[in-house]
């Protein structure tokens, strides 16, 4: 026989120990798994990319990266220029302001187009079920990039 109070305390301690043990064990497994996982390896794992598909898709990624980098640097420079113009009160109504803003919007459109073309080319190498899931997930990021630009 045990009192209700001591039973309650015992259950709480045992329950917390079980929770902590299981949670930290699983967490360490997850952390260990993701520790040395690159973004591309995550993509292959998440969308069940097989070894053959992987080679083709990796080649697509490697071919796309230089173009992506150039665009990225161009976009970052234009964004910096626009930020400098915005900070300068003397350039408030200046034509340079509108020009830089237009250029940034144009680069965003081009970046989105490049991104869409790329994800469709990648999806073309995947099996239908995975490609549909991949496209759906990636398209969700287009809205997020727009939010980032607005911010």
């Amino acid at each position: 026989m045990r009192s209700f109070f001591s039973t309650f305390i015992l259950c709480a301690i045992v329950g917390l120990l079980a929770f902590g043990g299981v949670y930290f064990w699983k967490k360490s497994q997850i952390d260990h798994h993701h520790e040395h996982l690159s973004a591309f390896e995550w993509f292959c794992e998440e969308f069940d990319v097989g070894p053959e598909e992987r080679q083709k898709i990796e080649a697509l990624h490697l071919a796309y990266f230089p173009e992506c980098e150039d665009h990225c640097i161009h976009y970052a420079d234009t964004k910096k220029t626009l930020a400098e113009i915005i900070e300068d009160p003397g350039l408030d109504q200046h034509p340079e302001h509108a020009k830089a803003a237009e250029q940034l919007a144009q680069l965003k459109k081009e970046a989105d187009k490049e991104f869409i073309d790329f994800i469709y080319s990648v999806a073309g190498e995947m099996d239908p079920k995975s490609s549909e899931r991949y496209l759906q997930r990636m398209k969700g990021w287009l809205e997020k990039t727009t939010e980032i630009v607005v911010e």
Partner: protein
Amino acid sequence: MKKETFDQHLEEATEQLRTNGGADDLGGFERGVWAEIALHDERWTTRVVQFFREGIPTLPMPAVAGSVAIAVAAGVLTGLFQAKAYGESVSESMEAQYVSSIHPVLRSESEDHRHDSSSD
């Protein structure tokens, strides 16, 4: 003094006090009763402690074992559920990392604009 004896004395003392009238001329017995009453602490903290010491029901061992087993099962399930949620959040951050490697706008948000040779 046992509780039953105390209760009995209390009733007798109360009855005597009703018949006697004033509290100034209490006899030895009544004074003893009032001393016991004064010792009986009625503060809520003391009553709570007393409840846990004496008033709470006890559980048989099978019920205790069952409660512990349920607590373990609940702890394990909650741990698994929380670990799954953690895994999903890690996967989401990996997805963000992947997308930032293929979308110029997201890439420009990070300081590093270059991809490494191992497909990022």
